[in-house]
């Protein structure tokens, strides 16, 4: 891969606030034309990293390169990178068109060119009919699209999006996800998207960087992150998973032999193992089948059922007290076990992973 394919190169970036370190030597490369998501719980450093790329935060160590050029010394207004802010930060005293033209006029576009470009971008986000309104006269979803149009108008080399969907209600959020992804494909520039919503990250991203407490935990495609999480944190944060404490007997060629809490031996792919020979077996709730007691990998007692519409969740408990969640499709053929009965669980071959802390 050549340097012209890498839009943003984050190279060992450290950011400290006094005694608190927000970013511990973070490195990642974001490709041109990629929808890249920084995902993590609040306080994991994802927003700090985004603000460092935009130029609102100075980094203490490391480099941030834009197509090979170090941009760390540049102030925000000299970086060809635009941001869609979480609360949109639209200029309240300007119309929609004036908002969109703001960045164009500041970066040397003539009034006529800027007006034409603003028209085009507003068409792209389907807001042409609202061009003369003030932000206060628009709904949340429309404001969000103005913010997007304003940031896209000056043709930035990279677009940063700071949880732009968090202020929208669920239905709208789902519609905007699709639109946003489509706009990213049409414009062909790198989007760096910050969110704490794993579902958002999985549905939109080409690649995801999962972060926690200032470290990058894993970078990969949504499928890689979901199906082959690298550690307990990633498995737990992305989607729903069962984490069983197991004892590791042996590991060879990526396959581990472990002892389940039920005493059964079990073999599974091993990502990482703790040094003391223990680990967590991560099993997704939808990758488990019910079977008669004693016929599966382990027996559990059914404690409760939760109806979720498309699925039904069974909350069960293993003999040693650990909880297991099983997800069953809400289909006619599904037979639900009674509460307080003991059933067997069969873990789909290859679907469980051994993970360290």
């Amino acid at each position, binding site marked *: 891969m050549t340097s012209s394919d890498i839009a943003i190169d984050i190279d060992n970036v450290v950011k400290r606030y006094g005694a608190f370190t927000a970013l511990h030597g973070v490195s990642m490369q974001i490709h041109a034309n990629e929808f890249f998501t920084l995902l993590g719980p609040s306080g994991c450093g994802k927003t700090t990293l985004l603000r460092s790329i935009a130029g609102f935060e100075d980094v203490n160590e490391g480099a941030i390169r834009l197509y090979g050029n170090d941009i760390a010394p540049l102030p925000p*207004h000299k970086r060809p990178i*635009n*941001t869609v802010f979480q609360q949109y*930060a639209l*200029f309240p*005293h300007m119309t929609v068109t004036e908002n969109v033209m703001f*960045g164009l006029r*500041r970066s040397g576009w003539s009034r006529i060119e800027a007006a034409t470009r603003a028209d085009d971008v507003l068409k792209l986000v389907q807001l042409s009919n609202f061009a003369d309104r003030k932000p206060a006269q628009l709904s949340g979803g429309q404001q969000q699209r103005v913010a997007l149009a304003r940031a896209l108008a*000056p043709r930035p080399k990279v677009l940063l999006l700071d949880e732009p969907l968090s202020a929208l209600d669920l239905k709208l959020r789902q519609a905007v996800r699709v639109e946003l992804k489509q706009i990213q494909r049409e414009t062909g520039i790198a989007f760096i998207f910050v969110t704490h919503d794993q579902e958002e990250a999985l549905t939109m991203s080409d690649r995801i960087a999962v972060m926690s407490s200032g470290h990058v935990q894993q970078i990969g495609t949504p499928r890689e992150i979901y199906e082959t999480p690298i550690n307990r944190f990633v498995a737990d944060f992305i989607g729903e998973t069962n984490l069983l404490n197991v004892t590791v007997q042996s590991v060879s060629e990526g396959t581990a032999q472990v002892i389940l809490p039920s005493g059964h031996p079990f073999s599974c792919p091993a990502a990482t193992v703790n040094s003391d020979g223990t680990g967590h077996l991560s099993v997704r709730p939808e990758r488990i089948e019910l079977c008669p007691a004693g016929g599966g990998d382990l027996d559990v007692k059914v404690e409760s059922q939760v109806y979720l519409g498309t699925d039904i969740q069974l909350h069960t408990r293993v003999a040693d007290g650990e909880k297991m969640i099983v997800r069953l499709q809400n289909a006619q053929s599904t037979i639900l076990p009674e509460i307080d009965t003991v059933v067997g669980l069969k873990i789909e071959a290859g679907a469980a992973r051994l993970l360290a802390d």
Partner: protein
Amino acid sequence: MAAGAPDGASSKSDIYAGNGPRLMLPVWVFIGLFLLLPVALMGVYSFLTKEFRGGVIWDFTLTAYDQFFLDRGLFGDDPAKIEWTYIGIFWRSIWQAGMATIMCLLIGFPTAWFIATRDAKTRSIWLFLITIPYWVNLLIRTVSMKFLIRDTGPLNEFLMWSGVINEPLGLINTNFAVQLGLFYSYLPFMVLPIYAAVERYDFSLSEAAADLYANVWTILRLVILPVVKPGIIAGCILVFVPSLGAFLAPDLLGGAKTFMIGSLIEEQFKGNAGNWPFGAAASMILLSIVMAVLLIYARSQTKGDK
């Protein structure tokens, strides 16, 4: 009016919004008794005939306004010319009040900005410090200013002692001294409304502007100033209006050449030498000017919001 509310009847939401007719009664009584009635009285007095030991005779006449605008010579029988004395005093008052307002704005805006950008705890301390001088009587403060800036006062003595100047600046009894006095008197009225506006200012707007290639000065000019403008206008009105009618600062800090409209009106009502109808007429003219300025401003605002 709220949609769906029957005409003439107040809906519940009107009452909760403070629009219930009975709830408004105390306000209307207060405004009527203490605002409209006094202004109306002043209007009536301006058309009465003066009585020599102060007070009025109930004889309706236009003499007061005639005296204000027209010069009919010493005995009142020359052909009428425009009387420039009082118009001149009015003009000077507007100029002085305007200069004081500009000074307040230049100092008040950065001050308000500074206070509003401190953390919440220190903010209240700074605000308290700003208001401390206002626990002292305005007269005392103005006299203190006179002592401070007079030729033998601490300011000149310090500057001469330190060798910056060789002779006193001669500040006292000048237009500038009056402006300084007005500035000092009304500065908090500029600082507080601007502070309130800046405190509500969303600093992510500045970041958004910087992100869109605006440098610091462009951000100030195109984003910050327009957004906090209501606070600036409120501050300017709160400084300009009382400055226009002030009489303490021009009396104590100025000389004969810095006579302002407030002093002119004050003299008409003081002691036995006054002329109540003339003072009332001058007040009405002053009131009209102020109202005109405010109306023009209000008109321009509604146009801008359309």
